[in-house]
């Protein structure tokens, strides 16, 4: 595993939070995924060894929790809330707008052709009073109607262009 020194430092620190090493499985998966982008077979084996577990103990956790992924995704991760309160005020339209803007399909297995985004339709993000809501990476965006979804898409595209 080729992890950043900062990640390794945080991994060693977080293990001390628990009297039982296995408890650090989720924190380690988060840290490795943030660093490497996804959880590879190598990462599963590495975490298992670090926590003195069998690889299956880690793999079964990876496959249970929706936030962990086995493959790379786009540079930005757009998560649109699908659940009732958001759907009642147009969540499906919001999701469709992101799909169209980036010419991609919803789902963790799709990356937009420009490599910029992965759009996911996720369950309740717990901000129902400001529906529809969207998480872009770790930042929550509220009341994202079609107009706002287009504006957010434009911003992502502008940031991508500025990087080139």
């Amino acid at each position, binding site marked *: 595993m080729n992890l950043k020194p900062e990640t390794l430092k945080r991994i060693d620190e977080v293990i001390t939070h628990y009297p039982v090493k296995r408890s650090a499985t989720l*924190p380690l998966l988060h840290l490795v995924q943030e660093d490497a982008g996804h959880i590879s077979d190598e990462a599963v084996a590495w975490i298992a060894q670090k926590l003195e577990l069998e690889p299956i103990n880690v793999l079964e956790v990876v496959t249970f929790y929706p936030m962990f992924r086995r493959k790379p995704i786009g540079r930005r991760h757009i998560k649109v809330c699908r659940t009732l309160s958001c759907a009642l005020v147009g969540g499906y339209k919001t999701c469709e707008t992101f799909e169209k803007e980036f010419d991609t399909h919803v789902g963790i297995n799709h990356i937009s052709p420009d490599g910029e985004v992965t759009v996911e339709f996720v369950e309740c993000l*717990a901000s129902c009073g400001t529906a529809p809501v969207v998480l872009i990476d770790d930042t929550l965006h509220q009341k994202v109607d079609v107009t706002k979804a287009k504006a957010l898409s434009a911003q992502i595209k502008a940031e991508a262009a500025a990087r080139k």
Partner: protein
Amino acid sequence: MSAPAQKRIIFQHIDEPGYTDDLACYLKHGGYEVMKRAFARPPQELIDEVKKSGLRGRGGAGFPCGVKWGLVDRKSGKPIYLIVNADESEPGTFKDRYIMYQDPHQLIEGTIISCFANNVKQAYIYIRGEMAEGAIILEKAIAEARAAHFVGPNILGSNYSCEIFVHRGAGAYICGEETGLIESLEGKRANPRIKPPYFPAVLGLYQCPTIVNNVETLCHVKYIVDVGGEAFTKIGTPNNTGTRIFCVSGHVQRPGYYEFPAGTITMGQLLYDVCGGPLPGRIFKAVIPGGSSAKVMRFGERYKGKRKVGADMVDYDWGVEDVPMDFDSLAMVGTMGGSGGVIVMDDTVNMVEALANINAFYSHESCGQCTPCREGSLWMKKISTRMVHGDARPGDAALLKSVADQIPGRTICAFGEACSWPTQSFYLKFKDEFDGYSDAKKTLPADRRVLV
């Protein structure tokens, strides 16, 4: 009758201009003073205050907090853990988010007071994975509190030590179920444990006695220790003490959070006076009063029976608008107050399509260990989605109901009930709409809002 005034206790500073999430701001507003006074009292006295207050858990079940604390095995010699359940995931609920993002020290103070009262040396805040920024805010707040000796070793020279760590979930709703949460905190799949024997109060985290309390509940504890259990019972109504935060979403003019003394406001006052009523030109059709698993209420239906008022039994005859928004009244009319998430639907909504949305949620979130729930939630989703996007058949409604009826009571945790109640109640209340859906579908506007 117009609505009573809001009483902001827990949400006193939420969205207040100039109020920030740092320690300096919290201290300026009297922060950690309640904790300092609590440390001068015997822990048992604090537990007694909470018992006296009648505080009921704000995570959804409404179980009395003092009773929960009373069940903790204190003779085992094992450490006692406290876990803050910050896995706010019940669709329609969004109150804990505001506390953690805007007033994290209120939660930390409530947590340390609760830990001191219960002789807990180690607490974990289990925050849902999607709230990554919230986790950072909490970690920063805990670090500030640690530097000021409000958290960590030898708190304020009292010889009492308590550590708090933040633990992030990873997108699984079932982690809100307390034994599933414990499994998850142990680094495993969040499969809930069977009770008995695994009552957290006896065999919880690492098989040690464990208290799991909701974020808002712990903030109430801080307030109770401040004003006293007796004074707390003066807010709200008997058996429904303190304030309740309602999270209103869906088809109202002013969705959002509102805090009222428990039991003092009716559904009608909340939706019309406080939230501004339906959207222009619309009428209310249905409301789910306590998170998406709570049974739906249909506008126009009546609830009749006898209820206790003081020492007397009196008749009641309520419409949806008349029902007081407390745990007991909502239970009396066949639904629940749950987590306070009120989801409103107007006459643009087709109930089959709304149910299909809910069923997709529960199917996605079933942990999968009990067959009736894993298979039942999947089939309810498949049938209701097919009704909407494929071929709706005349027997579908009865089929849905028969699947739903075979789940509750046959599963390890309450998810079995949670996933079947929507189907059961939607079918019961809107039977006409389900039975007639195959025909109605032909005339529904093609450009209607997509719900599934």
